[in-house]
């Protein structure tokens, strides 16, 4: 089974200067462990919403809004696509990922299973 691990942050509470070198090192270690365990399929961080654009469709009309999306409490800051044997396992990996962030960060991880087409092998 595949799970999308969405990482949501409140851009207003992100520590100045972004992730510390220590955090980057801890995260790197965990991602390496997940890769070697055959769990991590893909992961990336996203640039701040200041550089993002939102397209909204309503009643057949599309409106565009450029970032930053300050009105939003939480925005997606990154993701990891993982392969796990169960949702509980995905939750455990997400827990480990959050824990690397220590006390300074406020983070939400949303874990959603990826729908598999019928007959998909993995």
């Amino acid at each position, binding site marked *: 089974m595949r799970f999308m691990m969405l990482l949501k942050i409140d851009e207003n509470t992100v520590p100045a200067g972004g992730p510390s070198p220590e955090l980057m090192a801890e995260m790197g270690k965990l991602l390496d462990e997940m890769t070697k365990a055959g769990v991590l399929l893909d992961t990336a961080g996203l640039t701040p919403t200041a550089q993002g654009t939102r397209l909204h469709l309503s009643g057949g009309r599309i409106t565009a809004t450029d970032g930053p999306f300050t009105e939003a409490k939480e925005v997606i800051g990154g993701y990891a696509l993982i392969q796990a044997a169960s949702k509980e396992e995905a939750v455990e990996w997400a*827990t480990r990922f959050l824990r690397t962030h220590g006390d300074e960060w406020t983070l939400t991880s949303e874990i959603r299973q990826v729908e598999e087409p019928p007959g998909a092998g*993995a």
Partner: protein
Amino acid sequence: MPVTAEDTTDEAHRAIEAVFRIESARLIAGLTRVVRDVGLAEELSQDALVAALERWPETGVPDNPGAWLMATARNRAIDLLRRQERLARKVETLGRDAEREPGPSEAAFDRVLDRAGIEDDLLRLVFLACHPVLSTQARVALTLRLVGGLRTDEIARAFLTSEATVQQRIVRAKKRLAEAGVPFEVPARAEWGERLSSVLEVIYLVFNEGYAATAGDDWMRPALCEDALRLGRMTAGLLPEEPEVHGLVALMEIQTSRSAARTGPKGEPVLLLEQNRSRWDRLLIRRGLAALARAEELGGTVGPYALQAAIAACHARARTAQETDWPRIAVLYGALAQVAPSPVVELNRAVAVGMAFGAEQGLAVVDGLAAEPALAGYHLLPSVRGDLLARLGRAAEAREEFLRAAALTRNTREQALLEERAAEQGEDGRA
């Protein structure tokens, strides 16, 4: 629905099992290094799991569950060893001969606890589980159990056998390893080739067991492909300099990328060239091509897995079936026939040669296989031959071959297709 205490316990147990699945291989590997007995190591890890199931629902999962499990197993092991020592001393005072090796020290456990060198232990465990003194079946079961962290009932379901059978297979395998005095070590250079190919064979066998089964009710089967992929990726992480390991991973990633396109709406198999390529999984193709590139970087384009992966990659790179690089596939099959000669490889080469250089040349390769006893009852031989003959306009011969192929296949859908193709060649052989 109200949440009952039982629900929360259930939930907690599932969470603990997930932690255990992540940690068990490392746990068993580290313990085996110290106690030198994989059977005892597994028992100790099970004890630690039981302790976690008792404690964690109340205390919550600790911050570092792996270290907690290892520390718990360590304490059990030390208790056990002290009891054994006391017993041995009693035996000694009775005047018996009590020659015994010094048991592992607490310091030895503490070295495992800091997790340094645990990857070496894991690698030793992989080689132990795939040891040639074991039967192939035993290697598969032991690898899935000790390295993959699967429960015996999961292995039993995956291989459509009973839990008791799997249980017995694992017990016997561990006993066999102990009897044979198999050391817990990475094999020496002299036997490296054989030992590594045993590991890769076990992983690919698990993969094929899952891949060959069609989807549907057999929900465990796709999971088996996932388990094989995980084992493969893990082994690649442990042996990053071995091209064939990356070759195997590449092959499995690319094959899995086609899963969704391999079966039609009624569950019928769809041949590679007829698959809807938009349903191929781009992420897995990308991962597969990256693993293949890694194998090539390491100079490993000559092993059977890397070669098969290279062939699979030719298909993966083609946006449409017409864009397939058949000359390259023909060359790769030629190379594969050198390192892993088999009539089936040769038959595949015939197809590729036929696609690349014309039916005449393909037919020449197939005709070289006519007397091959291994292919005597294999429907694809006449089927491929019929196809090549049809392309050459030799309808009467083609018809005969298609009918022969239809009679040989046991798959009714395939049979219908072959009979249809025979009919297309015309009743009297004139298309």
